[in-house]
């Protein structure tokens, strides 16, 4: 009797839990799904309210084609975004692996000073130093270039990624290094051949954060890129959404939003483990 009751209670609890979970999941996913489905409506239908969200008058990629016809086109902005994000990933990984190794394994003058200097930049909002960054880039001849934007993004990533990499190197037992050193490995060989495979998860984590950070950043790109051919996707899409190219084509806006969202979602789903790990590292320390 009591067993049956507790069975019932268990089932009721499970039912309540899953209905809550499903309703909440739908609420969080609906805007994304709604947008992605709507992009495949023909232009005429995309102007109407998205009820229902899926195409009712036939499947079409017209919105993506329209988008590519605005200004310098979707493809140019997409290429700019890809270039900026990939370069930010490569450069910030390179710089922070070197720095993480240096901070973890060597004792040199001003080591702690430099480490605190780099980490403390996280306290200062980059939004407040954008004007001088603009002037510095002009002085360096990097004004209105994607390379200049990459330099800014790399700098923004460094406190987090150097912190991550130093911890990753700290976790590698020194015995491994000493053994390799006795085998005659030089510093660089040791870093690349021996250490890198051991800190690989950390590298994936910082690469993921660097990509998402650069791909999604808006304000710096808006301020620093003045030439339309240099616009990244968020800047390009905002120009389109503000009606800079004439009447606002919401079908094209949704297509652009989809292009901006999908790489982030795929990367996150594929590398979720590394993402959560990065969040934890930030949260625990």
């Amino acid at each position, binding site marked *: 009797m009591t067993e049956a009751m507790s069975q019932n209670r268990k089932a009721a609890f499970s039912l309540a839990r899953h209905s809550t979970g499903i309703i909440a999941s739908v609420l969080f996913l609906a805007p994304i799904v709604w947008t992605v489905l709507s992009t495949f409506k023909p232009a005429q239908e995309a102007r109407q309210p998205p009820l229902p969200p899926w195409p009712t008058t036939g499947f079409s990629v017209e919105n993506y084609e329209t988008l590519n016809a605005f200004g310098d086109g979707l493809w140019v902005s997409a290429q700019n975004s890809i270039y900026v994000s990939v370069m930010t990933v490569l450069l910030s990984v390179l710089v922070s692996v070197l720095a993480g190794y240096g901070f973890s394994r060597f004792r040199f003058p001003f080591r702690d000073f430099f480490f605190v200097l*780099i980490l403390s930049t996280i306290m200062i909002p980059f939004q407040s130093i954008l004007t001088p960054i603009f002037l510095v880039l002009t002085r360096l001849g990097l004004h209105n270039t994607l390379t200049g934007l990459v330099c800014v993004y790399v700098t923004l990533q460094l406190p987090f990624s150097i912190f991550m990499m130093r911890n990753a190197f700290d976790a590698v037992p020194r015995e491994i290094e000493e053994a390799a050193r006795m085998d005659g490995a030089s510093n660089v060989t040791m870093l690349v051949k021996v250490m890198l495979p051991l800190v690989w998860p950390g590298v994936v984590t910082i690469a993921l954060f660097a990509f998402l950070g650069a791909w999604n950043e808006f304000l710096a790109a808006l301020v620093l890129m003045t030439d339309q051919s240099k616009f990244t996707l968020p800047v390009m899409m905002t120009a389109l959404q503000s009606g800079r190219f004439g009447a606002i084509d*919401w079908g094209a806006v949704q297509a652009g939003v989809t292009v901006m969202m999908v790489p982030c979602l795929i990367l996150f789903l594929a590398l979720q483990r590394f993402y959560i790990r990065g969040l934890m590292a930030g949260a625990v320390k």
Partner: protein
Amino acid sequence: MTAIASTSALVRSRTSASLRQWVGLLYVLPAVAFVTVFFVIPLGMTAWMSLNNWPLMGEHAFVGLDNYVAILRDTRFWNALKFTFYYTVIVTIAIFAVAFPLAIFIEKPRPLTNLYRTAFFMPAVVGFASASLLWSWLLNVDSGLFSPAAYDLGLTEKKVNLLATFQPAFWSIIAMVVWKVAGFTMIILMTGLQSIPQDLQEAAVIDGAGPFARFRAITLPLMRRTLALALILSVAGSILAFDQFYIILRGGPRNQTLTAVYWIFNQSFVSFKLGYGAALSMVLLAILVALSLIQLWLLRRPEGLD
């Protein structure tokens, strides 16, 4: 054999030890260079520029504290700051009100929990600009979702433009930010919940403590550091809010949703008053540094706890 090898290694490492340590400087040099050129120097320049009248073209002139005096009289800046704080308080409460129950919901490993967690977290990896563009469409009066849907369901007599007046526009932004950020805060709170020892909760159950008593006496105090971290992240992020107000509202209706960063952006890159923008930036910077110091204080490790 082993003894000989380790002795010779010891000698070798002693002679070249200090030299080898200096190599470390080379490893960290690129990072230091980046931070110096693109952070430390601009930071110093902001301080210097704030003491100058600095137009985009032409010579700049030293004006002492004039820019700061002008800030005191700049009612639009103070209104922007006031709005920013108002937004920060409301959005932080809203985020926690959604994220905390979600964190409790996904804390324990049960069937499908990972799936739910992933679903709740998805909007967090979408950029703020993408999310703002997405919602600017959903909120659009003619082609969007909310107003037409409400009209079709007979909830409103005509299509209501949600972005035309302050209250609905403001709460629409809050809804969008909660949708985008709650999953992120949820994960951080979850790590705090999971770090609470299970036996502590069980002991309290045996002692006859109800769920609310346990939450107040065990969960909250032991989560203090995680809560502080989630709180500071939310507050700092909200004070720097720009994307959503620029993309969805353009600071409207009637400039009522201009945030601090938005006002600095306008002064610096629309009016090109770079010196004045720098002085405003210094004020913002001081607020954020003060917040970071509070954070360090809140996150300090007390004796015997944690």
